[in-house]
């Protein structure tokens, strides 16, 4: 089938799937669903057109993996922002701010600071010596075979964790927003992503990411303008109104419990702008910060973006642009989150999604005129479509990273030892894309209803504890060698995964059941007492009162029992633990130093002549860009 026909067919299938009559209720009311359908249709049509144009330009392996190195710094900056601002950061952070105020905003800072690491020590050296993948950098001076195997395995591991979290999150998101079935949402995301990557390679992926980033930034600026304009763009004016809102004060009172009793409404509101409503354990915060700051620089799909620009100067320029866009976006989320807290309210936000992910979309609906207005629903549809485009764009970048590791590193580099014709290489890349894409859809559907929060933690943990130490020390430490990177990859990956699997990120049925069982016990005791009281009571009025109390108590008991039943018969987490063995949600604090230690020890204990001999060459090239292949002009 020609790429043109396939792209068209994929678009039609995706639209048809979205248009199937939805039974489940979404955030968009039934009479406005057609609006969502139109906005989604426009975005799908535009991205399909881009893919069609891109497909004609994708001829060589370099075109497929890195857009022939012909992306400009400005374009790549937008694409990095599009690749990085996943639904978790775009909807998640606004949601956290809307529910927890200050702590949510503090959380967003690490996502930007991460790019300082990328800018200073990763972007330019990687551009100067890299080609298509993370393993290319490791293989430059280390034993190529060993480096490619460990690098590819870690790339596939990180990408799969992140990919699964995106697929599951995306499925839930589309379902919540427009009410289509979870399985269909996952399939739509998967089919569209496959169409982009398979035919348009990195060229189409880059443009889909750019389009998505522009849509996201436009939507956010528009919303913030509408939310902020009543206060004449004054920060204190806006925040005074936020803390004076009864819904915000109510949410704070709910979060701090008994401590709220002695506080005035104004104090409660002000508390929303102070730390400590979400993060109780500072050490966990620091550990998460480490994983973000070092993990981003070890993310294969982010690294890969630096191979798409022609020179180190363009790589530098792209990080500067990405930092401006990403940072600007997070500053806007402060207003989105606070605006949603005040205008929509935590109660309504949590009613649709307990994690707060719907704060942004609901705010859009509010500023457009509310749930019954056409403009409100058009805004909601637009934000929903941006969220959808976000998932597809991020997933496309991840699939490309995993497919390149599979085809370029494992198949071409290790199995065929580089004896592969250019035509065959492109074919291998496309086959790997289909395999990874099919895997993503399958895992997405199989993981329905699973707790995937730990997968994002896992992806960042492995990237920061295994990939980052190996890449950094290969680039900057003379003594680093094959022994170091193999040991570093193994130790970093295993510690990171091992610690997350026994951390509080997993579901522990016994811990969830405990408070419910306590309710059952209390209610059972009070029922016994009430029944005795009833037998002793003689007055009709007293009997009625006791009967009402019994009724209430029985209902509470039944509700708690139903919740216990919903948790299921399991007693332990999937690792067989009754309670977390390791208390930190993110293992970075332990696993990152261990990863570095492993690379250093492995290098000192192992002798590798090639790693030593290649040092001068690698170091001169990573600093000067000498012999950097000139991009092929299109």
């Amino acid at each position, binding site marked *: 089938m020609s790429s043109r026909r396939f792209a068209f067919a994929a678009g039609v299938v995706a639209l048809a799937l979205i248009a199937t009559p939805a039974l489940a209720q979404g955030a968009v009311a039934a009479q406005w669903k057609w609006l969502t359908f139109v906005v989604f249709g426009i975005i799908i049509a535009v991205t399909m057109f881009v893919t069609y144009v891109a497909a004609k330009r994708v001829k060589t392996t370099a075109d497929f993996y890195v857009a022939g190195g012909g992306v400009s710094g400005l374009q790549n900056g937008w694409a990095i922002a599009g690749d990085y601002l996943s639904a978790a950061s775009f909807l998640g952070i606004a949601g956290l701010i809307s529910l927890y105020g*200050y*702590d949510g*905003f*503090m959380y967003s*800072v*690490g996502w*930007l*600071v991460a*790019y*300082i*690491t990328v*800018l*200073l*020590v990763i972007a*330019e050296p990687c551009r100067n010596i890299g*080609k298509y993948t993370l393993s290319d950098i490791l293989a430059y001076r280390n034993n190529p075979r060993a480096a490619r195997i460990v690098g590819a395995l870690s790339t596939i591991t990180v990408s799969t964790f992140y990919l699964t979290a995106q697929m599951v999150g995306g499925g839930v998101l589309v379902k919540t927003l427009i009410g289509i079935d979870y399985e269909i949402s996952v399939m739509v995301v998967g089919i569209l992503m496959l169409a982009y990557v398979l035919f348009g390679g990195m060229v189409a992926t880059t443009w889909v990411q750019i389009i998505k980033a522009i849509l996201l930034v436009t939507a956010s600026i528009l919303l913030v303008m509408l939310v902020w304009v009543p206060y004449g763009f004054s*920060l*204190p*004016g806006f*925040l*005074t109104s*936020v*803390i004076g809102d009864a819904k915000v004060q109510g949410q704070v009172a709910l979060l701090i419990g008994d401590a709220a009793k002695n506080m005035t409404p104004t104090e409660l*509101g*002000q508390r929303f*702008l*102070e*730390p*400590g409503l979400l*993060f109780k354990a*500072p050490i966990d*915060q*620091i550990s998460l*910060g480490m994983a973000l*700051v070092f993990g981003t620089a070890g993310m294969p799909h982010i690294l890969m973006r630096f191979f798409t620009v022609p020179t180190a*100067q363009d790589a*530098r*320029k792209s*990080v*500067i642009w990405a*930092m*401006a866009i990403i*940072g600007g976006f*997070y*500053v806007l989320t402060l207003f989105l989150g606070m605006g949603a807290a005040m205008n929509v309210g935590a109660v309504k936000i949590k009613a649709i999604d307990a994690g707060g992910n719907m704060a942004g979309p609901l705010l859009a609906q509010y500023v457009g005129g509310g749930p019954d207005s056409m403009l409100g629903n058009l805004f909601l549809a637009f934000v929903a479509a941006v969220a959808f485009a976000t998932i597809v764009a991020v997933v496309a970048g991840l699939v490309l990273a995993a497919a390149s590791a599979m085809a370029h590193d494992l198949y071409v580099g290790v199995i065929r030892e580089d004896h592969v014709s250019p035509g065959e290489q492109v074919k291998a890349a496309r086959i790997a894309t289909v395999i990874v894409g099919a895997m993503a859809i399958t895992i997405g559907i199989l993981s329905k209803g699973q707790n995937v929060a730990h997968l994002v933690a896992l992806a960042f943990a492995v990237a920061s504890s295994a990939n980052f130490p190996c890449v950094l020390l290969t680039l900057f430490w003379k003594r680093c060698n094959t022994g170091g990177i193999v040991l570093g990859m193994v130790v970093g990956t295993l510690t990171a995964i091992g610690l997350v699997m026994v951390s509080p990120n997993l579901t522990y049925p016994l811990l969830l059941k405990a408070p419910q069982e306590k309710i059952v016990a209390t209610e059972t005791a009070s029922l016994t007492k009430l029944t005795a009281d009833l037998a002793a009571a003689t007055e009709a009025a007293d009997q009625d009162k006791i009967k009402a109390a019994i009724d209430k108590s029985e209902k509470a008991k039944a509700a708690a029992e139903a919740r216990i039943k919903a948790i299921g018969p399991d007693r332990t987490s999937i690792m067989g633990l009754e309670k977390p063995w390791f208390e930190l949600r993110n293992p970075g604090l332990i696993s990152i130093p261990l990863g570095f230690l492993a690379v250093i020890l492995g290098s000192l204990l192992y002798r590798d002549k090639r790693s030593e001999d290649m040092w*001068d*060459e690698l*170091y*001169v*090239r990573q*600093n*000067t*860009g*000498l*012999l950097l*292949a000139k991009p092929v002009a299109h």
Partner: protein
Amino acid sequence: MVDTSGIDWKAIDSRPEFQALHSKKMGFLWGLMIFSLVYYFLLPIGAAYFQDWYKIKVWGPVNVGILFALSQFVVAWSLAFIYARRANTVFDPMAAEIVRDAEKKMGARK
């Protein structure tokens, strides 16, 4: 892979021009990196152990905590700007000269 066999990398590495680039760049890079990390980790550490400071109101309801968090953005952007300026005006010309010299030698050998 690019053919790199014709170049004496050790000779380039030991040239004073390259050594000058190396020492200038490394000191600057790691200095910025460490400053950035220290400044960033002060935010969660302060939020945990110096909450009373964060609560001091400065500008209407805007408190020290919010200003500190906002300053993180300004600092990150400033560091990026400072690095880009230094790289554009100092490191790039130094690297370009080393590349020019090396390419001249390669041309002479051919």
